[in-house]
């Protein structure tokens, strides 16, 4: 009897251990399955990825006709003749032969086809419209064409140069999957968010953990928890309806939805994170540091700024890194507030499309298994890697801080 119970317990304990390892397994599974869907990018030839125009330049028209048919199966149901005749009234045969037409597919990416999310931002419909009106080329917005762009077609472009080109036009007869504009968009928004959130979050944490009276510290906690509890869609909604107009009026911008609005909104999501981790790090600084400094005659502010703050730097830095990860990965805010136009410009006040927003906006409309679908999973894998790396580095910093603390105490 007793033995039976023991066996039962043994099994239950094994089950507990198994389930606990589940979280480890979940990470592995996420890694496996997000990457699994992205793997075809390595096996897929450049022709399939670029929707046909590589084969146009390299081989005969039979091949290109096949490629066009391919692209039609997953692109929009636009007729072949229609799409080829669109930019200029040249015969189809002629445009096949010419390498110059490689730039032309710009015009095929009509604003309507780029995805439903595009249709709301007044600025977004404007931006792609610009593309169509100008003579088709990569430099339509006055930006220099990226080097890979010009080099790619002639030498039978490798997949890498395809991906690293400056055009993201996943829908249409000649889809282009250059992720540079998306990366630039993500970086812009994250940079603005961090530039706002890091000082505010760190200073606020310094204030509440050192200067402020106890009641202020106690009052701050629930406020920050409320802020952390804002659903990101609510922040996005706030940015879209209120903040965008405000920013446009204050700065006199051309576009209502842009990287700046997205960044400011994003900082609202990042401040609580940076605040909480900085506050933790600051309160973990041993009291005798402060007391020693004060006993030596340093005023309180100097103690806080020159003793407490430097001692907490590793933890604060970890907080900033995690905030950066959050800002790069956050989807709903950028989806709603940045205008969602994949432009590669140095400007911070023009619409951008981020990596996460692309996945969010386009995944619902793609067909399972086609290049666009695979590319979105590639982007997802990229986000996974970035957040994983930032997390790992932040972890190292936090552990170092802990070790330093324990080392100092003993």
């Amino acid at each position, binding site marked *: 009897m007793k033995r039976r119970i023991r066996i039962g317990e043994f099994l239950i304990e094994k089950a507990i251990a198994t389930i606990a390892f589940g979280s480890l397994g*979940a990470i592995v599974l996420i890694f496996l399955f997000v990457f699994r869907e992205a793997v075809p990018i390595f096996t897929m030839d450049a022709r399939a990825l670029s929707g046909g125009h590589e084969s146009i330049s390299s081989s005969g028209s039979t091949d290109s006709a096949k490629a066009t048919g391919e692209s039609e199966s997953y692109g929009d149901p636009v007729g072949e003749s229609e799409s080829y005749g669109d930019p200029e009234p040249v015969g189809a045969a002629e445009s096949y032969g010419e390498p110059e037409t490689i730039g032309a597919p710009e015009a095929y990416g009509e604003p309507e086809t780029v995805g439903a999310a595009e249709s709301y931002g007044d600025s977004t419909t404007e931006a792609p419209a610009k593309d169509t009106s100008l003579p088709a080329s990569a430099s339509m917005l006055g930006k220099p064409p990226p080097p890979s762009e010009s080099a790619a077609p002639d030498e039978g472009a490798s997949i890498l140069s395809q991906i690293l080109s400056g055009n993201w036009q996943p829908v249409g007869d000649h889809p282009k999957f250059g992720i540079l504009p998306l990366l630039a968009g993500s970086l812009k928004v994250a940079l603005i968010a961090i530039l706002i959130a890091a000082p505010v979050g760190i200073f606020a944490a310094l204030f509440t953990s050192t200067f402020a009276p106890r009641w202020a510290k106690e009052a701050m906690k629930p406020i920050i928890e409320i802020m952390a509890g804002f659903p990101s869609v609510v922040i996005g909604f706030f940015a879209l309806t209120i903040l965008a107009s405000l920013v446009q009026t204050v700065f006199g911008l051309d576009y209502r939805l842009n990287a700046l609005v997205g960044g400011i909104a994003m900082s609202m999501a990042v401040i609580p994170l940076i605040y909480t981790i900085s506050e933790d790090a600051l309160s973990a600084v041993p009291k005798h540091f402060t007391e020693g400094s004060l006993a030596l005659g340093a005023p309180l502010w100097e103690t806080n700024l020159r003793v407490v703050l430097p001692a907490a730097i590793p933890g604060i830095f970890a907080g900033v890194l995690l905030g950066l990860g959050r800002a790069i990965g956050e*989807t709903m805010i950028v989806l709603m507030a940045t205008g969602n136009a994949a432009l590669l410009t140095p400007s911070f006040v023009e619409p951008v499309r981020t990596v996460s927003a692309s996945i969010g906006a386009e995944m619902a409309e793609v067909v399972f298994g086609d290049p666009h679908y695979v590319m979105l999973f590639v982007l997802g894998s990229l986000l996974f890697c970035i957040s994983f790396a930032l997390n790992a580095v932040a972890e190292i910093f936090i552990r170092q801080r802990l070790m330093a603390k324990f080392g100092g105490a003993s």
Partner: protein
Amino acid sequence: MNIPKKWVGRGVALVTGGSAIATVALVLVVIGIIVHGGAGHLSKDFILGSPEKGMTEGGIYPAIMGTFFLVLLMSLAGVPIGTITAIFLNEYVGQQSKIGRAIRFAVNTLAGIPAIVFGLFGLGFFINFVGGGADKMFYGGSLHWAQPNILWASLTMSLLTLPVVIVSVEEAIKTVPRELREGSLALGATRLETIWKVVLPQSMTGILTGAILAISRGAGEVAPILFTGAAYFLPNLPDGLTDQFMELGYHIYIMSTQSVDVEATKPIQFATTLVLLILTFTLNFAAIFLRWHLRRRAFR
């Protein structure tokens, strides 16, 4: 030094204090604007009515119930797993053991992965792999499980909220005095009996806190369900696990970006946002209260 130190000190206090005050003000302003914009449209008909006339009128009842079913299924899957993981981490492996550290690192990583990647995972794993496999095995390849539905969305969400549950439950388990465990073991109870009869009952508050925080997070997160189950508009509530559903956050996103007439539906948007905000705040406050209760016990 040209500037007197006294002034520098005041400047530092001003800047840091200003940051704190600005943060508080920002939170209050956002809440104020949303309450101001939405309170007028809140009514019984709005809460209990269905969207009408192409979602330009009517209420949000299907979205509220969809959110409810989503977080219910999510909790059923996520809370037990999170609790068991937390128990394992605290009762079976030490703080410094390799296994414990590996699992902790995995949980931290899980907490840091962007929500949209969970959505991709839901699509790649649950819908394509599990759903597709089930369809091939049991339905001869006809589309049944290999499409977005409320089950896959809930499971995706439960994975996303797993770290929240684990952290809360761990916090509670740590407040259970060691003497209680030792007393139980000394009386001849096995480790499992000690956990089941002593540790777990004492940690109930923490488990509840974890569940509430997870629900609050799950109710507010939209990115993972964008393509794993949320629907643009459904007149009926989901009545099976393979149905799609409406959700509050998704409804806000759709209404404010892709509505037929964005300006005319502003009151609906604000009111929906207000409902979501009230929901998450209520849950968060409940969690804050429970945690406060728990900490009081820890210091006693």
